[in-house]
């Protein structure tokens, strides 16, 4: 078990190195930050000096090497756009992105699983049919469109919710949270729905089809024949057996929620890492882009690891074999 975790973490380092390498091979095409920093009237000599100081005149593998060496010393440089250390910027933005992503994932699970179970148990009821056809909207509409529609209805027409930003935040140590203030919670509603809607419909459809599958299985018939209550059969036996694929998908999706919150963050000016990345791209802010991409790679690896560990919890068959094997 421990060996498994360590092996996975070592893999994470390899993944991050590969991501950084690919990123640096692409950075030579993102443009010239010097041009943006010095404006149009800089003298050629000054421009060449800064380009040289920033190492932008080096081949990309040299830049990559410098990045790795500095990263090993815990140095990620300063943002060329706003002049602050990249590590500080990412640490400041991480809470916003994580709060939003986790709320979106919770929303997807809290609504998606019950709705999926219901649609699986009563596939022909009108409520299930409505939910199923409604879910098509969630799958097919692009995220930014959902965001803009929500803003138009709830911010512009009704004036109930703020159109942008994170509201007031409370600082708890190094963590800034919007969950403790009224404006913070209000600001969270629309981005959460926007970001979570796709996952919600995905989970709902997945649970439904898994439920339909499992409910036909022999052990369910047997459980009913034993005279167990509906509740015990549906949730204790049926739902539990649908959970392995659901956990896999949810886990992978949580990674992509964090990574692809970029669009939602941009639409709502949500001050998370995704917005930081978008701004960095438009300014060719290479230190921020490099660090962000590595961080996202790490997030994906860690989430995959957690998903793998969860299998042990949910699936007893894995638990039975593993201890013996690891004990030897």
């Amino acid at each position, binding site marked *: 078990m421990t060996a498994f975790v360590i092996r996975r973490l070592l893999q994470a380092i390899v993944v991050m190195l590969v991501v950084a390498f690919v990123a640096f091979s692409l950075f030579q095409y993102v443009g010239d930050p010097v041009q943006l920093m010095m404006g149009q009237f800089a*003298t050629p000599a000054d421009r060449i000096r800064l380009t040289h*100081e920033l190492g932008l005149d080096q081949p990309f593998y040299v830049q990559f090497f410098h990045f790795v060496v500095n990263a090993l010393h815990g140095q990620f*440089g*300063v943002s060329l756009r706003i002049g602050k250390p990249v590590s500080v910027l990412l640490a400041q933005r991480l809470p916003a992105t994580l709060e939003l992503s986790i709320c979106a994932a919770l929303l997807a699970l809290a609504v998606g699983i019950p709705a999926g179970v219901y649609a699986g148990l009563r596939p022909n009821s009108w409520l299930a049919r409505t939910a199923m056809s409604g879910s098509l909207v969630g799958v097919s509409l692009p995220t930014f469109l959902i965001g803009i529609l929500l803003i138009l209805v709830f911010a512009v027409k009704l004036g109930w919710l703020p159109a942008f930003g994170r509201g007031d935040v409370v600082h708890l140590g190094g963590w800034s949270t919007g969950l403790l203030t009224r404006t913070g919670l209000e600001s969270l509603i629309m981005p959460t729905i926007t970001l979570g809607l796709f996952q919600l419909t995905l989970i709902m459809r997945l649970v439904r089809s898994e439920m339909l599958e499992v409910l036909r299985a022999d052990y369910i018939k047997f459980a009913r024949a034993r005279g167990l209550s509906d509740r015990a059969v549906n949730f204790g036996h049926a739902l539990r057996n649908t959970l392995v694929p659901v956990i896999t998908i949810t886990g992978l999706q949580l990674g992509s929620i964090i990574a692809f919150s970029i669009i939602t963050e941009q639409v709502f000016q949500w001050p998370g890492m995704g917005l930081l990345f978008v*701004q960095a791209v438009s300014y060719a802010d290479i230190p921020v882009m490099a660090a962000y991409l590595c961080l996202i790679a790490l997030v994906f690896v860690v989430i995959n690891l957690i998903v793998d560990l969860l299998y042990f919890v949910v699936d007893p068959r894995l638990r039975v074999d593993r201890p013996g094997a690891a004990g030897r």
Partner: protein
Amino acid sequence: MRKGVSLCISALLAAMLVAAPGYAKTFRWASQGDILTFDPYAQNESFNNTFNAYVYESLVQYDKKFNVVPQLAVKWEQLGPTQWRFHLRPNVKFQEGEPFTADDVVFSVHRQLSKRSMTKAYLVGVVDAKKVDDLTVDLITDGPVPVLLRQLTDVRIMSKSWCEKHNVVDVQDYVAKEETYAVSHADGTGPYILKSREPDVKTVLEANPHWWGKLEGNVTEIVYTPIKSAATRTAALLSGEIDFVLDPPLQDLPKLKSDPNIKVIEGTESRTVFIGMDQKRDELLYSNVKGKNPFKDLRVRQAMYEAIDIEAIKRTLMRGLSIPTGELVTPQVYGYDVAANTRPPFSVAKAKVLLKQAGYPNGFEVTLDCPNDRYINDALICQALTSMWAKIGLKVKLDAMPKAQYFAKINKLDTSLYMLGWAVATFDAQDALINLVHTRDGKGDGEYNDGSYSNPKMDDLIDRMKVESDVPKRLALIHQALMLHTQDVAHIMLHQQIIPWAMRKNIVVTHSADNRLRMQWVHVN
């Protein structure tokens, strides 16, 4: 009795209205990007310079008509061709209490000329600053600098003792690992004090109660929020969460104009947008014409000019928000010459004839490079141009890209045909002529002459105007140069942009041709 009560109430209301200017007036506004840094010399970006000017002041400033008027200097005189004397405003204090003296000016000039400063361009020609006494400073130049005063409007004055105290005597080094104090703290002499700064979230400024001047406007608190998404910016203005948007998207203007709570004001920008052509290489990099360069032929340049239906671009793509032009600079700029503002009339037939005379009866192929996030509808305009040029037989391939890549490409002269826009920062035509049409010498002249246009007569005119102190003589030189630019078709001119600003009905602002929102003129009613 009842009448008496209502009289009382209306008197009270009237009193409140009169007293209103004394109340806190918060002005919440937004645009696409954020402020980059509060160190005024650490970045040279137009929006950042605008914002820094709320906190930091310069020796001189522009009035509403872009005349140079006193700010931290009360008067000045030229002691010789290379020496200017400035008499400083007495009894001015920085926001943290330090008195403003000649030492601060000398320090600021030296800091701005230092190695890592990104804003040296505003001190071109200046070699030193010397203290004469506490309230007198001399600026020494390496030759006559006729546009010096205009350049100085963007030379912000910092406090020497504050910079020393916070270890920011040097401008931030982007290779270093640390941010410096001046990135998110500021201590100027200006009308507003920086209260809080959260990058990409919001920045708050408060009126400086000890400011030496008197605000023409009434804003006591500024809350700036960058909103990257254009649709969200519009929505936030409509919902009343912000009062002002600097860059409303063109497609949302009809919706904004029809809302009773919103008004849109439009003003011309001192920017012209034009097309440049490689006029130096013997063979174009991106064309099927081999062994010669069609753009060296005036007839080809004229043909392409005549093939452009600029009114159609104005009507459809710009929704009326452009002024077609034939001159390199706009009427707001010193030196503008009505006589040079002529375009050849739009005529496909005549253009075809010209092209035939030049030896290209069947046209040729060429690639047009174009930014897609820099000027209003830039890529769309380029697309329209390719189809207009197709009508005279040119096969133009469009290569549109974001500005971060675009300028890096064309500044390497890696282009045959490109779009560029130029706003004259000094409001003096010389700046456009030096940068765009002087022969490129690698030392600063012709730095944006990306098509390498070169005409000895033009160089001579520009070199003379750079050092001519006689005002009428210099104006004549500028007029001649602008006329030559038009006659030579050094660039194919398109238009001057009209910039809309959108705001709530209760906001009064003064539109500026440099697209800078000047806070001292903003009223919140």
